[in-house]
């Protein structure tokens, strides 16, 4: 097929999956935080609150769309647009899976593989600072300005340990292209320990992984680093004056950034789409078993329902999971979905970690946050890079 | 044509450089003057990389890289100076900080 047509189809599929994942990530977050706080979360809008994102979208679209007086119109309208663009752009280089053959065409499950893939992601994250800074400036509101300045200062401060933590596994992988970074992590030590970056000799990248995760929390303005935009601090910071769809745009940008950062972590440190143990030892049946287990749990709770509506909805969930489990056994589908399952499982685990930490930790004060970045994270990241470099040079 | 003539890149570089010079000479706000300097540096970077392409060597790109680094250092110190001038004179207009002129 024509290269442009194929790329267009891939882009449409990725955009559709990403936007659906964004909407339902918000649902997952609200449910998980609710259960951490011993309550139920969205429950009434659709079965188990599954239509809550749709209700939120309708609410946000129908709200009054106002522009504050004396605001810089071009920047005010452009800032959320720019933030969303930058947030969604990084997905284009992330590899979701290996090479697949669909309808006679051979293609990789990745929109494009740049030679400088990881630098592209760092560049996009540098540019996303402007969305926040412009939003704070354009609102003509001193609280927004302060919140925007603090948020952007936090983002550029944590870019440094982030970049250093990214550079360390690159020394092991010896390439900047994301596809080749994952391909460098194939293989197994002793037949069952995967050769992911965090386990790879000569220097397992555990410290880089931890530094990258902490810096990623700060880059995406998530708890415990969300002082600049929390609702009870500085009147919600840089997005105070934004209503309806523009606020929704910032919201979407934050979740898209979260998904991007978790995908990059998976690619760099956790082996991307590679399975946890070799396919020869039966790792191809893991998705089937997982979904069958999910179906069994749903069926059990459907037969002894805690609430009356569950008598109907939970068996439906069980049937859907059973069908998905069967779908993973079909060889044609398996080749496409299996790598994507492993990628989604790892990214999903990291996203669960993000949500878990939001429900658990208190937030940093701003000066503590900046001091943490410059006085602790940056020296540790530099030391980690130096040790990795020394070991790679000594053992290569 | 299959490619872009090399001279077009050099003309673009000259255009950006002269725009930077025009901004440097004409504007009164010290931050805009500084940004015109950055525009000049960008024009020169394009020129270096064009010649790196023409000679099929990477040296031009190394020079460009070093120019970028020097521009970053200069921006940091220059903006700190601008902040200090603003603290002392409360104005960003370079016509008003001419007390050393006779």
């Amino acid at each position: 097929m024509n290269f442009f047509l194929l790329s267009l189809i891939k882009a449409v599929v990725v955009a559709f999956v990403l936007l659906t994942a964004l909407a339902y990530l918000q649902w997952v977050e609200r449910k998980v935080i609710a259960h951490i706080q011993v309550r139920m979360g969205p429950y009434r809008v659709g079965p188990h609150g599954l239509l809550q994102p749709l209700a939120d979208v309708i609410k946000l679209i129908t709200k009054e769309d106002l522009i504050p007086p004396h605001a810089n119109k071009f920047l005010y309208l452009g800032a959320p647009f720019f933030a969303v663009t930058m947030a969604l752009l990084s997905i284009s280089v992330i590899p979701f899976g290996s090479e697949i053959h669909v309808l006679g065409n051979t293609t990789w499950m990745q929109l494009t593989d740049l030679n400088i893939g990881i630098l592209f992601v760092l560049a996009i994250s540098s540019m996303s600072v402007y969305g926040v800074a412009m939003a704070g400036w354009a609102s003509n509101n001193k609280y927004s300005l302060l919140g925007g300045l603090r948020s952007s200062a936090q983002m550029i401060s944590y870019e440094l340990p982030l970049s250093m933590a990214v550079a360390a596994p690159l020394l092991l992988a010896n390439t900047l292209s994301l596809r080749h970074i994952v391909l460098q992590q194939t293989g197994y030590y002793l037949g069952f320990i995967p050769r992911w970056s965090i386990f790879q000799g000569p220097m397992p990248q555990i410290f880089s992984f931890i530094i990258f995760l902490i810096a990623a929390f700060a880059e995406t303005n998530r708890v415990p680093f969300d002082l600049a935009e929390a609702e009870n601090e500085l009147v919600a910071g840089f997005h105070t004056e934004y209503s309806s769809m523009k606020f929704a745009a910032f919201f979407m940008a934050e979740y898209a950034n979260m998904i991007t950062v978790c995908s990059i972590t998976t690619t760099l440190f956790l082996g991307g789409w590679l399975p946890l143990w070799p396919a020869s030892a039966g790792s191809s049946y893991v998705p089937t078993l997982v979904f069958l287990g999910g179906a069994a749990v749903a069926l059990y709770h459907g037969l002894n329902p805690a609430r009356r509506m569950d008598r109907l909805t939970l068996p439906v969930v069980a049937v859907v999971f059973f069908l998905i489990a069967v779908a993973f056994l079909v060889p044609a589908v398996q080749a496409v979905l299996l790598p994507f399952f492993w990628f989604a499982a790892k990214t999903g685990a990291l996203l669960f970690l993000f949500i878990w930490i939001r429900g658990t930790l208190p937030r940093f004060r701003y000066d503590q946050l900046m001091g943490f970045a410059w006085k602790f994270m940056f020296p540790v990241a530099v030391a980690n890079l130096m040790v990795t470099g020394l070991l790679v040079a000594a053992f290569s | 044509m299959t490619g872009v003539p090399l001279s077009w890149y050099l003309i673009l570089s000259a255009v950006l450089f002269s725009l930077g010079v025009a901004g440097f000479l004409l504007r009164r706000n010290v931050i805009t003057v500084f940004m015109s300097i950055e525009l000049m540096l960008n024009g020169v970077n394009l020129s270096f990389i064009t010649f790196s392409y023409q000679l099929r060597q990477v040296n031009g790109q190394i020079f460009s890289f070093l120019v970028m680094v020097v521009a970053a250092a200069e921006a940091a110190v220059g903006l700190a100076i601008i902040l200090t001038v603003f603290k002392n004179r409360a104005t960003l207009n370079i016509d008003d900080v001419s007390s050393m002129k006779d």
Partner: protein
Amino acid sequence: MDVILFLIFAVIAVVCGINVVVQTHPISSAISLIGVMGSLAVLYLLLGAEFLAAAQVIVYAGAVMVLFVFVIMLLNAGAETRRGRSLLAQLLGIPLLLVFLGLMAYFAQRLFPATAMVRFGAFRGGTALDVGEALFTRFLLPFEVVSVLILIAILGAVVLARKELD
């Protein structure tokens, strides 16, 4: 395809460049300058300098311009008010500029043969590997000197922008 991409991004660069000089409010000039740097990054990609393109966006557009934007926001610089401009400068300035640019264009066309075409992919020596190899072997001394320069700049900026402890 090369020509279309070059024309689009060259026009964006020139329009944003004119905007930098013409706009009264410094924040608009700063945004236009970010636009110039972004389009120049694409032009570097067309010239085969992929590492430089990424460095341009990460360092120049993503760090240096953030510094500018911060300072403009902190100082709350208002739009520039026009003072008396000499009419002669206004009448002669733009035509002279255009004559100068025309001369430069003519000389550039004469000096470089028409067969020197820039094709995307014709120069593959701009990868991170090549830049890194050159930077750490032949250009090691400038690299180390420039890192000392950055250190001096950091110290200078910290000293200048520090609050006085009374």
